[in-house]
């Protein structure tokens, strides 16, 4: 059930360099949203909505959390809203991460930069369902690191930074050899990271969450397509994704 809702901002916190945590109250969206889905947020005087992942959700309190980086004009304006303000939102959109709840398993989460947020809600949900969580989170530098505590509460955690200013120096794929055994992986992050990761983990069962500039966000405008692996068809990131099985699409 996609809805257009005016979500009220409960709180706004700066959690890392140019990185904002915003908590909303909305009974309707919080009830339906699953990990991997996103919100399409309208900021004043912008033609297009901005897609932002759901980073956490609490059905009991009716709260939804997003974490976002100030990137351009739209996210800058969003960051200027204050608690109490209402934000025009379309959501929850897209298909979330498939959650296999039958056999308890070990899951590897691999997040890069502002791809980290959806993995938190996913990890939390998987853990509640009995899975063991291992996380690798990559950031540019120390100042960009966020949610270290939250992810370490989920289980084994590796933080890497490009310049080694915090955690391991390097990229997420550099620490793959260090992690314990796992059954499948879920990843979200910049395209080069996803390319390197899926290449390195070829054959492993994995899911990746993708980004593309969007128009409608609901599958009507064909702005956000990408080809399937065989090249004979296509998928819409907003509607068929943003999560895809790693062998499903050509990135």
């Amino acid at each position: 059930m996609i809805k257009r809702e005016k979500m009220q901002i409960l709180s706004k916190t700066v959690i890392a360099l140019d990185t904002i945590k915003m908590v909303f109250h909305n009974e309707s969206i919080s009830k339906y949203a699953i990990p991997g889905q996103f919100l399409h947020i309208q900021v004043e005087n912008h033609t297009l909505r901005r897609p932002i992942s759901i980073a956490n959700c609490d059905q009991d309190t009716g709260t939804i959390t997003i974490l976002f980086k100030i990137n351009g004009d739209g996210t800058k304006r969003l960051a200027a809203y204050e608690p109490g303000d209402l934000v025009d939102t379309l959501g929850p959109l897209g298909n979330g991460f498939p959650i296999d709840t039958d056999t308890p398993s070990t899951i590897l989460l691999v997040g890069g930069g502002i791809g980290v947020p959806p993995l938190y809600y996913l990890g939390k949900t998987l853990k509640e369902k009995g899975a063991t969580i291992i996380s690798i989170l990559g950031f540019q530098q120390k100042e960009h690191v966020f949610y270290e505590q939250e992810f370490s509460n989920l289980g084994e955690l590796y933080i890497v930074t490009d310049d080694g200013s915090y955690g391991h120096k390097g990229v997420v794929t550099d620490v793959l050899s260090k992690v314990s055994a796992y059954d499948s992986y879920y990843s979200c992050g910049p395209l080069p990271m996803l390319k390197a990761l899926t290449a390195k983990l070829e054959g492993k069962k994995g899911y990746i969450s993708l980004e593309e500039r969007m128009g409608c966000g609901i599958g009507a405008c064909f702005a956000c397509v990408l080809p399937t692996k065989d090249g004979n068809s296509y998928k819409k990131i907003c509607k068929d994704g943003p999560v895809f099985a790693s062998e499903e699409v050509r990135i």
Partner: protein
Amino acid sequence: MTNLAIELPGLALKNPIIPASGCFGFGREFSQFYDLSKLGAVTMKAATENTRFGNPTPRVAETTGGMLNAIGLQNPGVTKIIETEVPFLAEFDTCIIANIAGSSLEEYVRVASTFNNTNQVHALELNISCPNVKEGGIQFGTDPVMAARVTEAVKKASNLPVYVKLSPNVTDIVAMAKSVESAGADGLSMINTITGMQIHLPTRRPLIANKTGGLSGPAIKPIAIRMIYEVSQQVDIPIIGMGGIQTAEDVLEFLLAGASAVAIGTANFQNPYICSEIIDNLPIVLESYGFSSVQEAVGKGIIA
């Protein structure tokens, strides 16, 4: 009771509000937000002869007061559209307009005639103005002779009323309009998008993979109003007006300028309920400016 109905060739519209081609897919996604039977008509995404995958992404970018798009006519091809999309839309009590495109006159004709075999489509919209494909499309839309030729050929091949969708990327929009009118067009749709470009400073590359894209949204509204006014003064066929409509007030502005119905594009992305909301507001707006019907407002701008 304000009368919203308006009668155009092939289209007995219950109201003048039509989602614009390419901004509403084939209606499926929007049908989860409101009953599509509420709409005057639905214009489908462009149909070509074969499946098209369109342009590389990114395909959209925001601009001040508008957006650029270069989707590139991605669509499953006319046969599949008739098989799977038209029957879905035909379930609703609304008119269906098929937007057709091609890379050659022959493709236009083949696509148009394929729609003869279905009795669920009420009119064709001849997209001779798509700026986002390498061949065909816009050439037909910028040369009055080519435009007349394709109009004539499609009219001959089709048993449906034909609305020709004009490109604003021309020196003389009136010449284009007159040319397709004498070639037999039953109506006009205007305006399509205006070719634009934006450059992303960090990468120094265009914000759209296709380099240029079509500008739509409120930014182009004054250009649309001007062109519709100019054309309506010189042709006798009705105009479906579009370009930046966001409110029922905007709809009235288009009617005053000379449009008989309107299409709503970009605004659907901001607010998926927009067409439904405008239909609700239109009677109030018409009344508040002293009109008791849509028909009454058409061309009533006092432009001496």
